[in-house]
C-alpha cells in the first residue's frame, strides 16, 4: 500500500507543478526581460532551410485532424491547409466569398435549395479526382458522425436520417444542398466555407473505415484532402510537418515544407525566432512583443481575431438581475487602463457582440470608466452601499490579471468582488451549470458569420434549466424572447445589406440592456523574420493559409 500513498503524494505534486506553470508565464517573461536588458539583444544567424517555413506555436490542444471532429484552433487551421472547401474566403475582405471546389452555385427561388457546380480536373493528394460524390459524402459524414462541430451543418435541419436526401450528388459535377427553411445565402455559404465542411477523399478514407466510423479513427491522425499541403508527420505535443502538394489546383505552394513546432512558452519562442531557428512565432507575450519591436530583423503584425472577451452576469443572482446594476458595472471598468497596463497590444477595446471584421460589426464604444455615474445607478438600484458577489476566473494570463484589476475598480463603488480561481474546464463546467455569479471569459465564433455570435449572445429559445441550447444568454439565465426572434429573422434575411443592418440595430440595444459586459477583442500578434511574407491570417481560426508563405 505504500505505493498508493506515494501516488497520492505524486498527484499533489503534479497539482503543485501545474499551479507553478500558471505562474511560470509571467515569471518567465519577467526573467527574460531582465536578462536581455543585461545581455543586450540576441545574436543572429538564420538557420532554417530556404524552402521550409518553421512556425513556432502552442500545439498542445491539437487532438484530432479529422475536420468533422476538430474543434480546436489548431485542428481547424490545419484543415484549412490540408483540405479544400466548396467555397473559400478572400482573406482581405471576408464578405467576398469565392469558389473553391465549387466553381459556381445558384440558389432556388424559395431560398432552400443550393446547387453547386464542381470544378473540373481537381485531384486529391491520392490522385483520385474530386467529385460531387466526395463533397456530398463529406457533408453527410459530418452530420452522421455528429461530433462536436456537427451543429454547424445540422442546424440547417439535417439529421442522420434525412441527410442522404437533403445533400446529394445528382451527377459527378453537381451537388445539391437543401435546407429546412430559407436562410440568408451568406450564412449558408459561410457555414459551407468553414473547416467542418472540408471535402475529403472518400475512397481513401473508406479504405480505412472500421466498425462504421466513416474512417474517423484513421483521420484523427491522417489526412486525405486536396489542399495545398499533404500531411507528412504529426507528433503530438512536438510537431506537425506538412509537404507541398504539387498538383494543387491554384498552383503549388511556395514552400516545399511547412513545419509547426510546439513551443509552449513565449520566451523560448522568441529566442528561436531571433536566433533564426524559426521563421514565424505566434504565442508571444507582451514583454516579448515589446522586446521584438526593437529588433530590426523581426516584423510584427497585428490581426484582429474573432474572439470576444466579456463578463457574463448571471441573472439568477438577484443583484445582477437589476438592470441598473448591470449598467453600473459597465461604467465601473477602466477599459483604457486594462488595455494599456495588462493586455498591452494582445487585445483591443470592443463593446459589441460582433467582432470587428465580421458582417454587421459596429464600432460603438459607449462605456468608459465613470465612478459617479455608476454610484448613482447603484443607489437607484437600492445597493448604494455595494454588495458581495463572486467571479469565476481562469487561473491564467491575462484573465486572472484583468479580474484583479476589476476587483480593485469595483471596490471603489463598494462592490466586494470575490475571485474564485480555477482551471479552464472547472470554471466552464460551473458556468454551463449556471452556478456562477459572474464569469469572465472569451467567446470565439465558430464560423465566419455574424450568426455564430448573435446566437451566443442574443438567442435563448428556452430559459429552463434543461434547455437543449446552452449558449451564453442561457448560461446567464437571460430570458429574451424578442432578441431571440430577431436573431432568427436576421438569419433568414437573404438581402445581405439588410441583414447587416439588423445586426447593427440588435447590437446597439444589446449594449444597453444585456447582462454582458463586453470589453475586448483578441488580436493575433504574428512575429516574422525579415524576408518572410505571405502568411495569411484571417479573422477566424479556420481561415489561416500557409500556401503563399515565402522567404527571401
Amino acid at each position, binding site marked *: 500500500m505504500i505505493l498508493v500513498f506515494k501516488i497520492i503524494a505524486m498527484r499533489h505534486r503534479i497539482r503543485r507543478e501545474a499551479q507553478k506553470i500558471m505562474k511560470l508565464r509571467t515569471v518567465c517573461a519577467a526573467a*527574460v526581460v531582465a536578462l536581455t536588458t543585461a545581455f543586450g539583444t540576441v545574436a543572429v544567424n538564420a538557420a532554417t532551410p530556404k524552402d521550409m517555413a518553421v512556425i513556432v506555436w502552442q500545439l498542445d490542444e491539437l*487532438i484530432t485532424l479529422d475536420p468533422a471532429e476538430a*474543434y480546436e484552433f489548431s485542428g481547424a487551421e490545419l484543415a484549412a491547409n490540408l483540405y479544400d472547401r466548396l467555397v473559400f474566403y478572400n482573406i482581405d475582405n471576408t464578405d467576398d466569398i469565392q469558389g473553391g471546389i465549387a466553381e459556381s452555385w445558384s440558389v432556388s427561388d424559395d431560398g432552400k435549395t443550393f446547387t453547386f457546380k464542381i470544378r473540373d480536373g481537381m485531384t486529391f493528394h491520392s490522385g483520385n479526382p474530386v467529385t460531387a460524390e466526395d463533397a456530398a459524402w463529406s457533408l453527410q459524414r459530418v452530420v452522421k458522425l455528429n461530433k*462536436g462541430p456537427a451543429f454547424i451543418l445540422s442546424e440547417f435541419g439535417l439529421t442522420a436520417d434525412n441527410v442522404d436526401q437533403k445533400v446529394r450528388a445528382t451527377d459527378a459535377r453537381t451537388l445539391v444542398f437543401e435546407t429546412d427553411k430559407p436562410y440568408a445565402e451568406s450564412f449558408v455559404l459561410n457555414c459551407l466555407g468553414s473547416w467542418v465542411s472540408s471535402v475529403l477523399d472518400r475512397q481513401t478514407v473508406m479504405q480505412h473505415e472500421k466498425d462504421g466510423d466513416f474512417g474517423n479513427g484513421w483521420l484523427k491522425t491522417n489526412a486525405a484532402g486536396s489542399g495545398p499541403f499533404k500531411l507528412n508527420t504529426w507528433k*503530438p505535443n512536438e510537431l506537425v510537418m506538412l509537404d507541398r502538394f504539387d498538383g494543387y489546383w491554384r498552383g503549388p505552394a511556395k514552400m516545399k515544407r511547412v513545419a509547426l513546432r510546439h513551443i509552449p512558452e513565449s520566451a523560448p519562442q522568441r*529566442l528561436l525566432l*531571433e536566433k533564426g531557428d524559426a521563421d514565424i512565432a505566434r504565442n508571444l507575450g507582451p514583454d516579448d512583443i515589446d522586446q521584438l519591436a526593437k529588433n530590426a530583423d523581426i516584423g510584427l503584425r497585428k490581426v484582429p481575431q474573432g474572439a470576444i472577451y466579456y463578463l457574463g452576469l448571471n441573472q439568477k443572482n438577484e443583484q445582477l438581475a437589476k438592470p441598473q446594476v448591470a449598467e453600473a458595472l459597465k461604467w465601473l471598468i477602466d477599459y483604457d487602463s486594462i488595455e494599456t497596463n495588462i493586455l498591452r497590444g494582445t487585445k483591443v477595446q470592443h463593446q459589441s457582440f460582433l467582432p470587428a471584421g465580421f458582417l454587421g460589426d459596429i464600432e460603438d464604444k459607449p462605456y468608459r470608466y465613470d465612478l459617479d455615474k455608476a454610484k448613482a445607478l447603484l443607489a437607484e438600484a437600492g445597493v448604494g452601499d455595494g454588495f458581495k458577489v463572486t467571479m469565476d476566473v481562469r487561473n491564467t494570463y491575462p484573465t486572472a490579471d484583468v479580474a484583479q484589476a476589476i476587483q480593485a475598480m469595483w471596490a471603489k463603488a463598494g462592490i466586494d468582488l470575490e475571485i474564485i480561481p480555477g482551471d479552464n474546464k472547472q470554471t466552464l463546467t460551473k458556468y454551463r451549470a449556471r452556478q456562477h455569479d459572474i464569469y469572465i471569459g472569451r467567446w470565439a465564433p465558430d464560423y465566419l458569420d455574424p450568426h455564430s455570435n448573435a446566437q451566443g449572445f442574443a438567442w435563448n429559445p428556452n430559459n429552463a434549466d434543461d434547455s437543449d441550447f446552452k449558449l451564453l444568454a442561457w448560461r446567464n439565465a437571460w430570458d429574451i424572447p424578442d432578441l431571440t426572434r430577431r436573431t432568427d429573422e436576421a438569419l433568414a434575411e437573404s438581402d445581405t445589406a439588410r441583414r447587416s443592418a439588423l445586426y447593427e440595430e440588435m447590437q446597439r440595444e444589446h449594449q444597453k440592456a444585456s447582462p454582458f459586459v463586453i470589453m475586448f477583442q483578441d488580436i493575433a500578434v504574428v512575429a516574422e523574420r525579415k524576408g518572410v511574407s505571405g502568411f495569411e491570417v484571417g479573422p477566424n481560426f479556420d481561415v489561416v493559409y500557409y500556401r503563399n508563405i515565402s522567404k527571401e
Partner: protein
Amino acid sequence: MTPDSKPEAQIPAPQIPGTGGRRRGALTATPQWAASGLRLLISVAVTFLGLLAVTFFIGRVVPIDPVLAAVGDRASADTYERMREELGLNLPLWQQFGHYVWNAVRGDFGTSVLTSNPVLTDVRRVFPATLELATVATIIGIIVGIPAGVIAAVRRGTWIDHVIRVIGLMGYSVPVFWLGLMGLLILYAKLDLVAGPGRIDLYYEGLVPTYTGVILLDSAIAGEWDVFRNAVSHIVLPASILGYFSLAYISRMTRSFMLEQLRQEYITTARVKGLPERTVIWRHALGNAWVPLVTVIALSYGTLLEGSVLTEIVFSWPGLGFYITNSLLNADMNAVLGGTVVVGCVFIGLNLLSDLLYRKLDPRAR
C-alpha cells in the same frame, strides 16, 4: 566494529514529500526466494489495485466534466449524451470501477481524449524522452556529485568544502525554469554553444528509424552520427540543469555519508596499517558509503523519471511530466491514470534494482 553500521539511519527523507521510507529487508530478511517472490507479487498486486482505486475516485471527484473535455463547449445536448454513454459515465459507479480495473489488468487504459491515441501508445512515445533526459542528468549527477561530495568530506571546513556546499545549495534553491531560460539565453542564443529547445533539429527529424524512442540510442544503433551529435547538442543543456539538481542532492548526501565513514575506527586502522590515503578514502570509505548512496541515487533518478514539468516546458521536451500535467489540466483522466501507473512501475522497478544492488554491495545481505 562493522564497517557500515546503521547506514539507513542517515538516509534522509526521500525527495518526494509523503512517500515515506522504503521498506527494506523484504528480500534481505527472508532467505526463501519463493516466499519473498510471492510476497513481492502480492504486494505489487495490492498496490496496483489501490493505485487504480485512488486514481479512479479522484478522477470522479474533481469538479471537471470529462464529457465536456471530449466534445467541446458547444456541442448539442444529443452529442453530449452520446459521448457520455461512450465514456461509460451513465453506468453506476461500482460498475464503472469494475470495467476500469478489468481493462487496466489487460493493459488497456483507454484512449486519451487529448491525443485520441491509446494511453499506452502515448506513454510509450513520451516516456523515452523523459528516460533519456533523466538518465543523462543522473549520470551527470553521479559523475560530478560523488567526487565533489568525497572531496568536500575529506577537506571538511576548508574553502573547497564551502565552495562545493554553496554550489550544492544553489542547486537546491534556484528555480529550474529560471536556470533553464538563462542557460538558453546565454549558451544557445548568445554564445551558440548548444542547440535550442526541442530534442532534435527539424532537418534531422525522421532520418533515424525508431527502435527505442531514445534518440541517442536510436541514432547510435543506426550509425547516424550527425543525428547523434545533434541530439547531444540538444540534450546537453536541459540534462545539465536537471543534473545540477541531482548533483546538488547526491554531493550533499555523499559528503554526509563519507563524514560518517571517516569517523569510523576501521579508517584509522587502515591508515595505521600504512595504506595510501587515496586507497583509504576512495576504496574503503567510499566503498562503504556506496550502500546508502545507491538508495539516494535511485530516489533521485526516480524523481527525474516522473518527468520534470518545468524543464520540459522551457525546453519544449515532449516528456512524461508534461504529458501528465497537460492531461490533468484538460480533464483527460485516462491519460493521467496511465501516466501515474507508469510512474508507479518505475518506482517499483527502481526499488527492486536498488535492493539487488544493495545485496551486491553489502556482504551481509547476501
